[in-house]
């Protein structure tokens, strides 16, 4: 176990009722101070993984460490913030009372709570709602007060499970800003989100999980391996042309009557393809290569067979 990692898991596994495998064997390292995106389709085991790390679900086997301490140790949890996915709070509390309660559970002193809570409420733009009960809050406001709760103990590590669901664009921008500010202070952020565009702009590294296993992890550049996606507009698209293009790259898709998108191994290859099209008499109206987006990567990685599937 390395002390430079905020999270380490070794073959962490969860099986419900001895039959339903939620997490097959999670092995993962998240470095201290990074913003880490945790991605996968519905039912991949993302939320169960987070719950195991936070002690809400007991692992069937395997081991895991938070901030260098075995999961379940209370001293580690005192430095961990968490915004749950299906968050519901004690809605009869006022916003300041709610944060005060959680501050007490974190063992913060009264003076510390009195100083920090107003600042966090301001951080999430809820100053005017400080004395309002949570039952009167909109979903977005609840999300933001939840974010303040997650940041309350000056955490070394924060788990944000779908932090932007239910937020309008302003709210999403706010969350993004808060994540960046926290990272600048050295906080490790574990971000579980379906909004790939959010993950793309905020995360240093990502892991793709499928059937409860990490199938790829790294920076977006590392994961794309130099691949570029190119969008080509032509005067007409024939089956013969599509077959020819399939030999140049992968994931050839006709996106409209005149447009094709496909992956190429690198930018040099895209220049060669452009030259080849023109020299073969194909009229090219537009040729736009761009780096693979996280969504492109997600689809590519999720659609590819795993090593186990290939072996089978």
């Amino acid at each position, binding site marked *: 176990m390395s002390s430079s990692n905020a999270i380490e898991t070794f073959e962490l596994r969860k099986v419900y009722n001895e039959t339903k495998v939620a997490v097959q064997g999670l092995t993962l390292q998240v470095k201290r101070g990074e913003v880490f995106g945790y991605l996968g389709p519905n039912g991949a085991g993302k939320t169960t993984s987070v719950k195991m790390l936070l002690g809400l679900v007991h692992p069937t086997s395997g081991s895991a460490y938070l901030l260098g301490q075995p999961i379940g140790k209370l001293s580690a949890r005192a430095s961990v913030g968490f915004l749950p996915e299906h968050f519901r709070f004690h809605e009869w509390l006022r916003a300041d009372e709610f944060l005060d309660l959680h501050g007490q559970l974190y063992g913060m002193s009264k003076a510390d709570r009195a100083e920090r809570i107003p600042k966090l409420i301001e951080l999430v733009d809820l100053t005017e709602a400080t004395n309002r009960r949570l039952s009167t809050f909109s979903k977005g406001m609840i999300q933001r007060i939840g974010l303040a709760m997650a940041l309350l103990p000056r955490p070394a590590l924060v788990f944000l499970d779908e932090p932007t669901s239910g937020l309008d664009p302003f*709210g999403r921008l706010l969350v993004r800003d*808060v994540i960046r500010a926290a990272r600048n202070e050295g906080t490790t952020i574990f971000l579980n989100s379906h909004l790939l565009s959010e993950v793309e702009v905020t995360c240093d590294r990502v892991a793709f999980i499928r059937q409860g296993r990490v199938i790829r992890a790294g920076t977006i550049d590392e994961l794309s391996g130099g691949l570029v996606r190119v969008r080509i507009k032509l005067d007409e698209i024939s089956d013969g042309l599509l077959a020819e293009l399939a030999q140049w790259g992968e994931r050839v898709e006709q996106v409209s009557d005149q447009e094709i998108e496909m992956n190429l191994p690198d930018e040099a290859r895209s220049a060669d393809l452009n030259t080849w099209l023109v020299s073969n008499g194909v009229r090219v109206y537009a040729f736009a290569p761009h780096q693979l987006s996280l969504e492109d990567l997600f689809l590519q990685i999720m659609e590819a067979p795993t090593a186990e599937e290939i072996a089978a």
Partner: protein
Amino acid sequence: MTSQAQTRTMPQAGLTSRPHIGALHQILVIARLTFREAQRRRLLWLGLGLGIVFVGLFSTGFYFAHKECTESGCLAARSGFGDLFANTFLMAGLYVVNFLVVMVTVLTSVGTLSAEIDSNTIHSIAAKPVRRWQIVLGKWIGHALMLMLYAFLMAAGLMVAIYIISGYVAPNPLGGIAIILLEALVTLSISMLGGSRLSTLANGVVVFMLYGVAFIGGWVEQIGGALQSQTAVDLGIASSLIMPSEGLWRYAATLMQPSNPFALGVTPFSVTSQPTPAFVLYAVIYSLAALLGAMIIFTKRDF
């Protein structure tokens, strides 16, 4: 709201080491939360308000009944009849108080664990540096304090009213109240045991059914005692072992009724098959075991 991407900074940045958080601290935080929830949701005030109305109605009824009997001379007709009259009234009132305490216990505590699990509210609490058993114990203490306050005020209110109107003081008033409080704690513990595993609805059904079994069993035992049917008495004892609530009420009633010839077999609250002090000890152990079970189950389960 405007973007403050360049200017938004974390307040009081930097990691701090915090002293060890004691178990008692966490338990008291949860207990205060539970108490405050009852207060904020107006459960406490409604309970106390309606309790005061009940005590007021009871006092008014007793006042006029006592006055009527005093004026007609029936209370002076036989020695000790005035005490029996007041005691019967008091036991009737306490019987209702006892029933209300059990109902309030079940209704306030039945979802204290299960509803928070169902709504996922528990996620934000259980992920904190707090042990699961501390959550259960904190909630138990919060509910227990609230119920003890409620039961004590109601029972003491009736006794004070009886005393002011007639000058009568029941035997062992504090002992009787203590047993009624114990009954509330037994019900609370069993409700929390169910709530640690079952849904709120299922838990409510189970606790009320257990109370029903104990209630019927208590009457079977009383009738069996009067008819000298050992089988019926044994059935009643078995039901009291399954759920000691009714047995505790009978013990409390025994404590608070005078041991004179008028009491035995005369009033509706007379006890023909009397629980022993060992039964009270059993109820204490039963309550603690249920609480311990709730802690263990709640600790082991997944959310």
